[in-house]
């Protein structure tokens, strides 16, 4: 899941990545088993087999039930989970995993190399409705060399090969019949009693209300400390906040307003620890580059100059965001900090526009070219207050420049289907969620401008295409850096979209929970190591 189209819910897009700030830090206390952690989820999971799902609650819950062969550590390095070690051939075409000897499924069966093969078969099965197939179609074959050894042969060098094995490994002995019939969605394990290898096992579920997990005492990396995790599904951010105040939940996410303005009093700061790290996505102002006005780079650059990003971040996120200069998150290895920036400068913006032929103004103060005033429609999806505010601020900023903007907010499904896919828009405010890998072929490559593709803005630049192709097939990481740094320079110069900001993820956890070490990967990556010192246990449970 390299790139995710971000839907309505802001929290739904964050991936917990990158640099963090730790407000206060607990003194080390003795690790203890026990207690229950109650966590708020904004939406119910859409299923319990993450391989065929794409919503973030499912990934969060699934992440505790299943393991990948590899996973990301605090600093976003790939480390072994079910795989003990791995090796690449020098041409990057052969990948061999050595698996852990002591991993077992939740039903007691041992985990073997055959399950890895099964997971591969599931992902490439023509009737598996997964959006994650791409990474497995470049595989030529998967061989079970021994019970603990899997050999994977790629048909061409694939930079994301190792990372793609971070997906949940599924049990053959449970799911095979459903995969064979193309009915994985209908498998009972997608609703209840999933079988994984992860640190927590499924205990119970009440539709739309809660999911309960209990510690897997046979977990191969040692049992997790917290014995129960209760996910309470509360689809209203203000309610989650009140539940936090009343101690009805121990962990959740805050929105920017709550983080900045509503949680800065001693009682809250004593009971909870707030975290802040760059979120997993950025918000942008995108242009339909088929529109002759926006096809002119100077117009796009002028608009970039007209938008005061500081004001935007303050107004929309109460300052809890980071300026975006390109599609990569500041502080990650692919990010290039030395690209062209567009400081708020109306004089410069006006100069650029007049170069592009927008010189005169009409009676309403709008710029005119060839007798036509410069006005356009700015669309975004309903249900995202943040984007609505961005649109309103952009509208006011461009009005100063003599560009009239009309805002239109449309329900998500019809917005995508009727306007974005059919390219019936002039400009949009949207967001991209980005994963840990910098491959963004699908978004910027000129071959990806079809109706079902993600290059909605119809961007085409031969050098960008070239860099994207090389970046995804490069075998050596250092080489990839070079390509992606250059990519960002071109994008910054071109401004096919105005990159606005990366919003921060703002998780909050009860201060009785210890062992949280925030890092570029957020806080959840070491969940099994979280613990509550015995004296602070709130709930008794087995």
């Amino acid at each position, binding site marked *: 899941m390299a790139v995710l189209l971000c839907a309505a819910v802001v929290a739904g897009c964050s991936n917990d990545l990158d640099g963090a700030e730790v407000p206060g830090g607990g003194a080390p206390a003795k690790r203890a088993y026990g207690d229950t952690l109650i966590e708020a989820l904004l939406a119910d999971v859409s299923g319990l087999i993450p391989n065929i799902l794409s919503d973030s609650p499912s990934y969060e819950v699934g992440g505790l039930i299943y393991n990948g062969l590899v996973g990301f550590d605090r600093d976003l390095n790939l480390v072994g989970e079910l795989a003990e070690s791995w090796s690449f051939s020098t041409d990057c075409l052969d990948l061999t995993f050595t698996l852990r000897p002591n991993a077992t499924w939740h039903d007691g069966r041992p985990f073997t190399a055959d399950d890895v093969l099964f997971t591969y078969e599931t992902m490439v099965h023509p009737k598996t409705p997964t959006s994650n197939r791409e990474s497995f179609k470049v595989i030529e074959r998967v061989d079970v060399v021994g019970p603990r050894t899997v050999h994977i042969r790629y048909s061409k060098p694939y930079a994301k090969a190792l990372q793609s094995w971070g997906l949940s490994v599924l049990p053959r002995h449970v799911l095979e019949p459903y995969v064979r019939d193309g009915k994985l969605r209908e498998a009972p394990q997608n609703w209840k009693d999933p079988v994984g290898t992860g640190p927590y096992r499924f205990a119970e579920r009440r539709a739309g209300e809660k999911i309960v997990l209990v510690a897997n005492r046979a977990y191969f990396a040692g049992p997790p400390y917290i014995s129960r995790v209760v996910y309470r599904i509360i689809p209203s951010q203000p309610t989650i906040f009140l539940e936090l105040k009343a101690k009805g939940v121990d962990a959740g996410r805050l929105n920017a307003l709550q983080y900045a303005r509503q949680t800065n009093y001693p009682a809250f700061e004593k009971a909870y620890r707030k975290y802040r790290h760059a979120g997993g996505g950025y918000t942008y102002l995108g242009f339909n580059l088929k529109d002759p006005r926006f096809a002119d780079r100077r117009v796009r650059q002028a608009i970039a100059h007209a938008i005061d990003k500081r004001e935007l971040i303050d107004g929309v996120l109460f300052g809890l965001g980071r300026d975006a200069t390109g599609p990569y998150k500041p502080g990650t290895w692919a990010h290039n900090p030395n690209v062209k920036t567009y400081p708020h400068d109306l004089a410069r913006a006006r100069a650029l526009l007049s170069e592009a032929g927008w010189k005169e103004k009409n009676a309403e103060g709008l710029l005119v070219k060839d007798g036509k005033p410069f006005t356009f429609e700015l669309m975004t999806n309903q249900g995202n*207050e943040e984007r609505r505010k961005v649109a*309103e601020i952009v509208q006011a900023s461009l009005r100063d420049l003599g560009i009239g903007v009309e805002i239109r*907010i449309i*329900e998500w499904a019809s917005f995508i289907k009727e306007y974005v896919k059919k390219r019936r828009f002039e400009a949009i405010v949207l967001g991209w969620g980005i994963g840990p890998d910098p491959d963004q072929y699908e978004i910027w490559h000129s071959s990806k401008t079809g109706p079902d593709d993600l290059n909605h803005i119809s961007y085409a630049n031969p050098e960008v295409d070239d860099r994207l192709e090389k970046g995804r097939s490069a075998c050596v990481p250092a080489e990839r850096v070079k390509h992606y740094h250059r990519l960002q320079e071109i994008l910054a110069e071109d401004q096919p979209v105005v990159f606005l900001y990366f919003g921060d993820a703002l998780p909050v956890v009860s201060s009785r929970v210890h062992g949280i070490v925030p890092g570029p990967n957020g806080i959840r990556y070491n969940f099994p190591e979280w613990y509550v010192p015995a004296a602070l246990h709130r709930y008794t449970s087995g």
Partner: protein
Amino acid sequence: MHAFWRSLARNRLAIAGGVVVVCLVAAALLAPALAPWDPHRPSIKQALAAPSAAHPLGTDQLGRDVLSRMLYGARVSLAVGFVSVGIATIVGLILGSLAGYHGGTVDAVVMRFVDLMLVFPSFFLLLAVLAFLRPSIWTIMAVIGLTSWMRVARLVRAEFLTLKEREFVIWSHAIGASTLRIIWRHILPNAIAPVLVAMTLGIPAAILTESGLSFLGLGVQPPHASWGNILNEGKDAIEIAWWLSFYPGLAILVTVLSYNLLGEGIRDALDPRLRQRGR
């Protein structure tokens, strides 16, 4: 007709209600003159400021003056409230009286149509509308009006079913009065009372529906204000900015209450029995 106005003029509560309604409408019409600030211009540094001399009703999340937005919003909300309820009432009256008066096949056809409208998932109807029409205040009023007439139709029909069998109607038939005259002079005035209640309840519903429509892209679009969308935008900030949801709520309440008083007065004035006794 004369008696109607005299009776209405004697009802002090109704007069008070009417005066408030007129004041609200006037405030809406004079919004450009009355509003102290630009209702659309964000001013981030002023965001969520509490009510003060400069901003009597505080500011919203983008630092815009709530009073100014309320005044401009009144144009949308009052228009939507009154016009869409008006549409719903007219459609409901016509169809309801047709069904109730004629009975039989006409009644069956009309009432089954009502059933269809009630059951129909209006969300999809609105989506379909959206595919053809650009959102404007007119489409909003039409959409709300044309999807909310069913209750009125049913109430009117029920009244007609009873009334048309009453002695005075039967007598009118006997002396050869025309159908239209019977409906207009004899049945309608007696059937109007529950309709007035439905209208009173319909106004706040329509005002709130407008903001609900914006999620489809059919409501008034930002940055334009309506009472409903000011209210909605205040939802997240309710703990630290009560004024964002309090004032629009209050405005809707005042509108409903004063309209209700006026409605009661009209009903009493229409009732010939009450008129004779002269309250």
